[in-house]
């Protein structure tokens, strides 16, 4: 980290409607991860406004930011970011823990979401006992557990082989079909083609923003 400030995003203006599935593409350094971090309230823009579900996200205290992240947003990361000493079930239940939900209730809910991603039999396994695709599915279940408005995915297939990628994409498409809004950062064209809209970033500005004809992942499987 240098001490010099660097303007990564230089004027981004776009809207995402409920139920959309958008991929953000661009070469490294184009600002796509920064954009996703701002959308995820993990970072704040120096200027401009960000309105999430009618709520302006600006100058939040850490406490409120944590609250919004917990209620509105679900995160899926390239490197899964599961807590490695907790079982799949406990990982999924974690956002619910921070909502203050009772243990019994959150375990039930976590089991429901693990079932949804097809990992019920693995619920008591540690992340180290799961394959990459399984880990990502646990992460997806975790992102879904708090029933967020928006799912943010940072290279969700970046660490997976193509067959597993397609399985994960199929799952994400299914979630989108149920009405969840999804924003995804990726640099793989075939993955981007599986969303409904592609935003291209270059040097901190949007150079292209167009809907695409969605390719269903199920045709590959």
């Amino acid at each position, binding site marked *: 980290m240098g001490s010099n400030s660097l303007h990564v995003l230089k004027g981004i203006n776009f809207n995402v409607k409920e139920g959309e599935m958008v991929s953000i593409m661009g070469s490294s350094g184009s600002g796509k991860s920064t954009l996703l971090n701002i959308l995820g309230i993990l970072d704040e823009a120096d200027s401009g406004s960000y309105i999430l579900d009618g709520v302006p996200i600006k100058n939040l205290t850490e406490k409120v930011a944590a609250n919004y992240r917990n209620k509105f947003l679900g*995160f899926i990361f390239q490197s899964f970011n599961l807590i490695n000493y907790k079982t799949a079930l406990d990982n999924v239940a974690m956002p619910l823990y*921070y909502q203050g939900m009772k243990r019994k209730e959150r375990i039930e809910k976590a089991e429901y979401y693990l079932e949804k991603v097809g990992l019920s039999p693995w619920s008591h396994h540690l992340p180290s006992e799961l394959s990459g695709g399984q880990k990502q599915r646990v992460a997806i279940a975790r992102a879904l557990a708090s029933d967020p408005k928006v799912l943010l995915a940072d290279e969700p297939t970046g660490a997976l082989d193509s067959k597993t990628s397609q399985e994960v994409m199929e799952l994400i498409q299914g979630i989108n079909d149920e009405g969840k809004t999804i924003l995804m950062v990726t640099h793989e064209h075939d993955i981007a083609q599986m969303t409904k809209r592609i935003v291209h970033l270059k040097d901190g500005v949007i150079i292209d923003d167009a809907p695409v004809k969605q390719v269903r992942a199920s045709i590959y499987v």
Partner: protein
Amino acid sequence: MFDIERWQEIFETLSKNKLQTFLTGLSVASGIFILVILLGFSTGIQNGVTAEFEQDATSKITVWTRRTTKEYKGLNPGRYIQLKNSDYNDIKNEYAELIEYESANYMLWNAQVNFENESKNYRVYGVLPDYQFIENSDLGSGRYVNETDIDNATKVAVIGNKVKLDLFKDQDPIGKGISIYGINFKVIGVYFDPGGEDEESQVFIPLTTAQKSFNGNNRLNNLSFTVKMPKKFKEGVAISQYVSQAIETNLKELHMVHPEDMSAIRIQNNLDEAEKIYSLVDAIKLIFWFVGIGTIIAGVVGVGNIMLIIVKERTKEIGIRKALGAQPMSIVGMILQESVFVTMFAGLFGLVLGLTLLEFVGPLIENDFIKYPQVDFNTALTTVFILVIAGAAAGFVPAYRAAKIKPIIALRDE
């Protein structure tokens, strides 16, 4: 605090850092252990010193005399100053309202005492009835010398328990006759003394009897008094100093002794001595606390250190938790609870170990100045309280750091 999941997390993270946790725990435990032992021994020293002073009444003032060392008003040095009954009466009347118990004593240094065929030498004191309280003697059986004995100069004797064991063996000595230098006395009581065997190998007879029977006339060997103790120890010390000083001045005038002759009139003021020793004990206590707390601080710094390492190693995990909606306070709480737990557990372990050692080894210590080393419940509670505070203090810096972790930095892929 009673959240099972939180506890599970604590055990999981600690077990991932077994060696550091163990070493840290060891330093805290040994800190508390040392503190407990030190405090136990400072109590032991206090008990020992108190017991030493309990041999006689704490506020005892003893007056005795020797030869003069300074020429004064034409009188040569080397003159022996003899205490008389009149000296005793003067002092007794002069300071009546400050004095609690008083006795004038005439002493036979090494008198042969016989019972039937048994014979042995003891110190024999001619005393007044108050002497029982000045010496802190405890009557095992019978009675002490009383006013009637003094008035009638009766030939009665109160013997120490050691004398009884020496001469009477298993027999009950009360009412039996003994002879002192061939003069017959009737045993009226047996006493015990906190001073032990030495103080119990003495025989007390009425002062008047002693002076009449053993050629004492009106001569005395020493005078002993105790002052009335006010509630405050310090005031007692002041009164006792005042009385000792006044008696010394009085007697020097009466016997024409040079005011600066330190040898002719001797006064021992127990309270003065006691105060010196007690302040020494207090100082020792203070030093022990100081050393003990220093040791704990070293342990606590260790805990802080390991918590910093743990926070560093868990940076990513904390970032994940924050991304999932963990409040900064919940992160702080997690780290604090962990560090309080480590200090508490290790500290209590050290406490129990220290208490156990004191419990079992304490009674084996045979030393006049250390008796029953122990730590009372309040002190133990204080150390536990210090521990919790220390644990929280040790955890605070790492917890604060953890709360400041930014999720984006933590989650950045290396």
